């Protein structure tokens, strides 16, 4: 479903080159939930940004369902890719109400017309969806989303992703700014959506516990390359202790 060929990203800072992603080949199947581990600076975020289209690769190509998408802009790829950022502020528009944020999310793959789309029936739909989070937010739909906590916003961002067509979910350390309880709630939600919708997902994390518990494939990156790559049955064999040793 996703195929990456010789993907390379070289940054130039102060005259010298940094190879952030180094000639990566990777294929991701439908319904695969890939966990990416790796030390700071190993190129994980860069890889995700290349997939999302917020960075342009120095070399290589990206295919989605056999179609090359390397030259598609980020906003164009949003028609099938949803994102969850490390910073909960990045995935929502703070000054807009929860309902406006959801309205925008419902139009991720569509055009935004000159019509009043925030109808009663749309609001009912959002209310129902939000109530499933059991955070009591369904009563606050007209509050600015910026008035919520990071954990609440991250959970809403995830829910927003399900408002429109999504075939790939990219998550870059989605729980690193959250307290343990909120982190677990967001992870449970993500894993449930990925399973129910049968979509592919890629998650970067520094939490070995999360890496061990979630996902059906695991990759370790180092200096811009993939140095470990295990499928579902292999991943199941790996113990938390072994993962810790990967970083020794």
């Amino acid at each position, binding site marked *: 479903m996703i195929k990456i060929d010789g993907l390379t990203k070289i940054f130039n800072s102060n005259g010298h080159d940094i190879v952030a992603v180094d000639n990566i080949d990777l294929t991701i199947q439908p319904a695969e939930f890939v966990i990416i581990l790796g030390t700071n600076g190993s190129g994980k975020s860069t890889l995700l940004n290349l997939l999302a289209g*917020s960075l342009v690769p120095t070399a290589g190509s990206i295919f989605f369902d056999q179609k090359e998408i390397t030259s598609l802009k980020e*906003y164009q790829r949003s028609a099938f890719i949803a994102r969850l*950022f490390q910073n909960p*502020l*990045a995935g*929502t528009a703070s*000054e*807009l109400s929860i309902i406006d944020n959801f*309205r925008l999310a419902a139009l991720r793959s569509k055009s935004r*017309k000159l019509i009043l789309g925030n109808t009663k029936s749309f609001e009912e739909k959002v209310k129902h969806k939000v109530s499933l989070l059991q955070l009591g937010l369904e009563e606050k739909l007209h509050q600015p989303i910026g008035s919520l906590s990071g954990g609440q916003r991250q959970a809403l961002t995830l829910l927003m992703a399900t408002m429109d067509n999504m075939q790939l979910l990219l998550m870059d350390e989605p729980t690193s700014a959250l307290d343990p309880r909120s982190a677990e709630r967001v992870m449970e939600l993500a894993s449930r959506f990925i399973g129910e919708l049968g979509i592919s997902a890629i998650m970067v994390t520094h939490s070995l516990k999360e890496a061990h518990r979630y996902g059906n494939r695991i990759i370790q990156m180092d200096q811009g390359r993939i140095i470990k790559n295990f499928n579902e049955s292999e991943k199941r064999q790996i113990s938390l202790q072994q993962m810790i040793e990967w970083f020794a």
Partner: protein
Amino acid sequence: MDALFAAITQGLAYAALALGIFLTLKIFNIPDITTDGSYTLGGAITAVALSAHVPVVWVFPMAFAGGALAGVATGVIHTRLNINPLLAGILVMIALYSVNLFIMGRSNIPLTDLSSFFSDSSVTNFIKAFAFALVLILLITLLLKTDFGIAMRASGNSESMVLAMGVNIEKMKITGLALANALTALSGSLMVQYQGFADINMGVGIVISGLAAVILGESFIRLAKKSSLLLNIVMAVAGSVIFRVLLALALLAGLPPQALKLVTALIVLSIIAVLKISFRERT
């Protein structure tokens, strides 16, 4: 009394300008100073069109279109060439000075004896300016509540979010700058019809009037501790009227007209200072 009444009418004629600045500054978070040029552009187009006996109903769309083009120019320079919006605005503003002179053919066009939107009755003029401002307030509020408007509002809020939501943010910014400058040009058009002449220097420093209106409006919102889209927009227009009244009062109190721009700057500075101090105390 007459002077105050005239000031209120002018403040309403400047409502479009205030709304333009509101859009760029508050909705898009872009400091745009194409304003001085697009305001005069609207005035220049109006003066030339009315002199050529173009019906008033056509004059407004022409001024609007002219301003929109100016905004597109700033937007394209800013987004496609990746140039700081302030600089992009200055470049277009400077270029517009020549364009406006070219359109007008001379530096001043009087409009005596030509029919225009306004008439000789100050009461009718007030009602017309009020109606014009009201229609703009309603249209802009409605626009910002549509699906397109939600995307507009989000654009100035979180770029990463908007891109992830499939919005072409460059196109959105160009559209926003076009709309803002089109509104500004409408203000220029109204003022030319109100004053009865167009002048090549009529736009000098006009951006500060819009800024003052928006900032005054914002201070009312903070005082009222209530906020909604409609209220924000209404308050920007109210700010425009109050600013004109303040200036009129200063002139009535004996301020020499040469000092007007100095006082304008001081008024804006003091509002910002007061806002900053009172805001700091609360946080």
